[in-house]
């Protein structure tokens, strides 16, 4: 090896490439107040109108929302006793049926989307998120899914002690939303379209066309509902299975394919079955139209406006710095001494620290 090194001597001189000599051509922008001011201004010019458009879109959405779980008509009779302790523990929330009356102020143009809105429901909880079997739902596997789906993986027959696998298993399927709504606009029954609610790809690929087995189909218990006729055709179930990002969420329940005129009386017959009382959550019914940005949500527009305005303000500040600079650009004599004393501690100035 040494010999090789030796033989290479005489041609040690490095090659004169731009890379090795660190002389590649480069763009060297300087962060001057003028440049930053211009940039901020440009951003403001884009963001403020964008914000306005977003806000406009959000405002163009008409919606009617009513919370019904605390409506006495819906609540009374949900539990056999009125005791708080029972509410917490009881599985026997048999559910109630009640009628809500809504009056839209503005005409809701078709299609009118029917959502249920829930608060404090932790669909994004780790336990909940993973308590399902994608393979099972996609019909690829029918075996035992104990680990992921526990404790809702099996049903034990109390008489003979045999275990039967639940399909679809897991907490997510077991707690499927089971409230139902029936609409009557100005005394006329309005059908609710329950198709086209879920992601097309989910319907196609993630959920197979099979009949569920051993699921929590006793509607009298929490979340109990017969899923079906087949898994992939129950789009409300599929919507439920797309877990919400935050504890407060809206999920699509159906579509009303006709206008709901302003001032009309909408009577909704609600079967209140999903137990949100146990943990103090709320349930609401929402009728809403959409804009190109979806439902009502002022955040995006407000944020764009706010950031745009901030940019404009800072643009002005930096513009001020440009014309009345605290120091001149590139002027080395105006370095603040605080900085330079560190720099200039040439050799050993009396105190080295």
């Amino acid at each position: 090896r040494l010999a090789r090194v030796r033989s290479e001597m005489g041609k040690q001189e490095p090659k004169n490439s731009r890379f090795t000599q660190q002389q590649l051509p480069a763009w060297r922008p300087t962060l001057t107040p003028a440049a930053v001011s211009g940039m901020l201004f440009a951003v403001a010019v884009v963001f403020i109108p964008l914000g306005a458009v977003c806000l406009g879109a959000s405002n163009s959405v008409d919606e009617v929302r009513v919370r019904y779980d605390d409506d006495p008509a819906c609540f009374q009779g949900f539990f056999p006793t009125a005791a708080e302790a029972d509410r917490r523990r009881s599985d026997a929330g048999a559910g109630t049926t009640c009628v809500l009356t809504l009056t839209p102020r503005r005409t809701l143009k078709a299609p009118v989307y029917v959502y249920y809105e829930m608060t404090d429901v932790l669909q994004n909880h780790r336990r909940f998120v993973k308590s399902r079997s994608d393979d099972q739902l996609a019909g690829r596997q029918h075996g035992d899914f104990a680990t992921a789906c526990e404790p809702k993986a099996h049903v034990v027959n109390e008489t003979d002690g045999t275990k039967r696998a639940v399909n679809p298993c897991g907490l997510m399927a077991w707690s499927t939303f089971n409230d139902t709504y029936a609409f009557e606009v100005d005394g006329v029954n309005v059908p609710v379209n329950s198709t086209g609610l879920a992601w097309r790809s989910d319907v196609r690929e993630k959920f197979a066309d099979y009949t569920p087995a051993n699921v929590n189909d006793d509607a009298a218990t929490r979340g109990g509902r017969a899923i079906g006729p087949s898994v992939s055709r129950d789009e409300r179930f599929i919507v439920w299975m797309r877990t919400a990002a935050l504890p407060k969420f809206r999920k699509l329940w159906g579509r009303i394919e006709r206008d709901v005129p302003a001032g009309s009386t909408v009577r909704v017959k609600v079967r209140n079955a999903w137990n949100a009382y146990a943990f103090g959550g709320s349930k609401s019914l929402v009728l809403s139209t959409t804009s190109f940005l979806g439902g009502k949500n002022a955040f995006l527009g407000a944020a764009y406006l706010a950031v745009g305005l901030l940019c404009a303000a800072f643009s002005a500040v930096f513009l001020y710095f440009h014309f009345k600079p605290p120091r001149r650009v590139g002027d080395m004599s105006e370095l603040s001494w605080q900085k330079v004393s560190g720099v200039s501690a040439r050799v050993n100035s009396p105190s080295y620290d």
Partner: protein
Amino acid sequence: MKHPETRVLSPRLTADDPATSKTNAFSFSSTHSFNWIKRGKRRSGCFRSNEITTSHYTARNFLFKNLFQQFQRAANVYFLVIGCLQLDVFFPGLSPTHWSTTIGPLLFVLSINAVKEAVDDYGRHKSDAEVNARTVEVVRVKEESPDGKKRVVLESTAWRDLNVGDVAKVRADAEIPADLLLVASADVSSLAYVETANLDGETNLKVKTTAPIEGAREALRELDNADALVSVFTQKNARLACESPNNQLYKFEGKWITSDDSSSGGSSETETETGLSADNVLLRGSTLRNAKFVFGVVVFTGGDTKLMRNATRAPRKTSRLERHMNVLVMCVGLFQTLVGLALAGAQRKWLWRQNPEVAAGGSKVRGGDSVATMRHWYLAPSGVWPDVEAADADGFFTQFVRFVVLLNALIPISLYVTLELVKVIQCFLISNDKALYDKENDTKCGVRTTTLNEELGAVSCVLSDKTGTLTRNVMAFAKCSINGIAYGEDDQVVNDVSCLKGFSNESDFDTLDASSGASHVRVRVDAFVSGDDETNATKTKTKTKTKTKNNDRVAAETHVVARSRALRAAVEARHPPVAAFLEHLATCHTVVPEPLPPSEEESEETTPSSHGAASFGGFKYQASSPDEEALVTGAAILGRRVARNADGIVEILSSSSSDFSPDCRETSLLDGKEEKTCTTVRILAVNEFTSARKRMSVIVRDDSRAPGERLILRLKGADATVLERCAEPADHESRMVLEKTKEHLDAFAREGLRTLVLAERNLSESEFEDWIKTYEHASASIVNREVALAACAENIERDCFVIGATAVEDKLQEGVPETIETLRNAGLLVWMLTGDKLETAVSIAHTCRLIDKDGDLVVVREEDFVNDAAEGAFLKKKAAEAREDASLGSSFGLVIEGGALAHALLDKHINDFLDLCDACVGGVVCCRVSPIQKAAVCEAMKRREGRVVLGIGDGANDVGLITAAHVGVGISGREGRAAVMAADYSIGNFRGLSRLMLVHGRLSAKRNEEVVLYAFYKNFAYAMANVWFAFGSAFSAQPAFPTAAIATFNVLWTSFPTIAHAVFDQDVRVDSVFKVPALYRETSSKSASSGFDFAKRVVGWSVSSAFASAWCFACAFLTLASVGTVDERTGVVTLNHMTVGLATFTAVVLACDAKIATRTNHWTIANVVAVACSAALWFPFLAATSKAWFLVGAFSDVSDASDALFVDPRFWLAVVLGSGTAALADLATQCFVRVGSPSLAEVVREREAIDTADAKKRDGGVVTKKKRKNALASRLATFSARAASLGYSLGKSFGARSFASTERGALPVTARDGGAWKGACARRKSRNPSVLEVVKQHRNFSDDWNP
């Protein structure tokens, strides 16, 4: 030989074939039965094989060994543990994330490192194989079958099969295959010359003598005579006892033992021993020269050879940044733990709220039967351990582990490998920098440690060796003092014209020896030239002559003393003291003269200067010390040419004595015109020079002298050591002479010359006889021979009388004063540590601007400590004085002697001493320091907090300094490779240091710190999103991001911009650092600062990171968690949490890429590509994984997410809002800080931009008159502003502005006002420049800026 550290071997002449060895009488002798060396694995029995392996791995053990090595890094183990915790097989339900999120990146990181190692090792394997397969001839004795006669053959053997005891034949210009004991040489005088450049870098030939083994030479010469060979090596039970393998290149202790044949049982009485030394050993790695072939007995093989023993690994040093980084990783780990505890605690609280009754009762919530106790009934625990939701400590711990696993991304997994990669590239750039390439020696900058690049940019103190580092180490014999008369004074130098004409014309320089006058020379010149032309002017000869003459001219120009008219006259007149002086010079040395062969001439035609200074009159003088080289060459010019120095004989060709010995070899040099003679002097003993002894002496027998004076001891060495070994002068005259000599010594030293004192005395025969016995005994000893020899020498080196002194000049290297000036302007302390005399050191320090010439000097000597009653109080006093002076504007330089240093470095004084050093702003010189003290000074400097020390040196005596310093730099100069091998960086000359530090060091410091900070930034930004999400998911440790995103974040989306940034970024242009050296100080003070300062910067980045993360999270979740539009194609209405998480992730990735973009000052195409691709390629990746979710189980959480996201305008709006705002906030903050309190670098950068713009304008040529007027006006305005402003303080470094104020003479006055000024003032004033000087400097600088 009974000593445990010896090994005994016998020469072997048989092959390893068992059949032959059985029938052969010369099998391995049994004496090698020492069992200390059992490691040898091959056939050689108990000695090592000669096969060398520099590779670390084999194909079989690579995986295991490399993994073992990699998992010695704590971070890798950490991620492996996390990865194991994530395995559902072992811990079902424990981990919130998939195992691939950790194992994937970890595998990537490990494989990058493995590939790097494999590539490195492949090269090593290849070169090992090549070296091991080289062949060498080995002497074997074979039995001839018909008559049973033995026959000797030379067998070609691969190096790897060479065994201890083999007799190998090495031919000229071949490399020595193992450490050989030289037993025979083809050379007439039984010498062999080797070049040891591979070993120690010295290019001069070293002479080796054959071991004094009776008959070996003859036997090997005629190989047919097998019996002779056998008898030499085996019949007398010959064996070799020597030291155990070690790494000392210049030491070998051994003896050749033979015992009489009759008593082969090994009775000790009949044994005869011959001492062997390093002179008899040819070391592996050196190359044979000037001898047709040699025979040697293999002594050390393979890993035992001195070469391999010296192949030390590069020293492991860690940079400050790395240490900070490690602490930071710990802190982040701690932070992670705390956050994990807090979040787990919060989850406990949430659970308790769920089950107030249970919490009160303290029972566990476990399993399906307790479902009813959860208020959130749809979250029933699985009951499978460890996935329990228990409200007790058990559950708390589980949840804590979950959060640790979830937040493991806080620790940047790719940081170490990124940094490693980046540093390797930086090292490549450093070693390929053309500006660091030294044309003269054809060396480029060497980087031996790849971990210290940023440390080069943090240096605050440079400790420099003098000789060979600051100076050239090309010695010129400049002056001498003989018998109280100094020669070589300027006024006495022979008129250049006459003298040099003599050389440059076609004169044979020999003629000049005896001549004194110019006219004399000319006459002879003409006569000679004509004679030469007429007689034998073959072409080669003329050429050789020209060459010789050329060398002679160089020599005469270099060694100034030879041009002293007075000295020439004295030589001419055969003045006895001068003759004695020259005789001394010619005999007392270890220089080997080598006749310049005609063949050599052509190859070296191009570089006549390579040995021009050290050759004269047809001889090239090979010496280990350049001083000796100079002295012997000087003597040659003055008429005492050493023609031979070997076998204890020195032959001197002299032109002024009338004796003539017939056995002189070089009779051809007699040209007939000039009377020339050859004297032969026997060297009876040499007491060699060591750095501890600082002197050498020889004992010569000169038969030409009067009977009583034939034995002479000649002593040469440093003045202190020699003078104390001299007798008190007996008479007044000699006392005067001695005084004069001392005066001259001082004068020489003041001029910066290196002085040596020559002394001698006559020995009586009896004294010598007594002494030589002890000497021989000492030189035969195996253990501690050096000590024994030194003690022995001490006995005879006494009572001498001084016959003269020599002064040798060592010129400064090119660019040294400028470099030191730049370094000092960059705020660095530059100290010089030298073994030279005080006066010499100070003089050199002045010329290289290390000490201010007009400043005062504080001199600390050993006496100060001895006389100091109050134990170091004077240090304090002097420090106070110096400080006071510094505040008044003048400066002290400190000079401290080695003796005093020994006291000052004691624990009780060291702080006072360092205070004094700090107070002496004029520069510090330590003189007469030993190598150990150099290292000690370095260690002392390192004690001061925040001080990073760089040691630079070129010789073996600097190794201690270099290894002790934070960064060691070696100069690959004339003094061997010891320094280079110990150093972290090696450069060709001192000049390169400023570029190495100011450019590469500074850039690396900046870049690498950004790499580290950015690594934490991005990991913080993305891991913290999980924390924010925990607040929305009941602290359930649900990850915010899907598996595919987590697994690729560090590796694919954020690492390439960092690498590009760390390789290409330049905040200011490279040459600006030289114009404004304070830029270096700015960076280094930042880099060298304490962990606390670093922590402050980390906090700054973390805040910005936390903002980016929180804002991106908010934008995505608040926008996308609500109801979206119903897309006709996809039917998406609401996005699930993982899809929203993906949007957050997208925003975070873009924010992180934008962050590195805002930090980029220098956009090369690579930066653009890296940033743009990292950001842009994420989208196709997202699309691909969400489409291919069913292929990889871990991707099921992103199924079809891209379908939903890409068509949703809210996604794009949210991502732009999140990342864009984060980037804008960053830019605005940076600009705001820049406007308010800019760093120097930022200002310089602005200045550059302005200049570039100006230059463009000028080139455009459209400068109207009005514009020009405006420009002038604005320039005037700025000038006046400068005058009023603090311009001067920034001194010349800060450019043109100061010029105005200086011109008005206002600067010293204004500069003294204001407290904040103090430091800077002290600095400026310390240099105490005349106003004119300052103006001049400023003018230069402004010219730089405005070309």
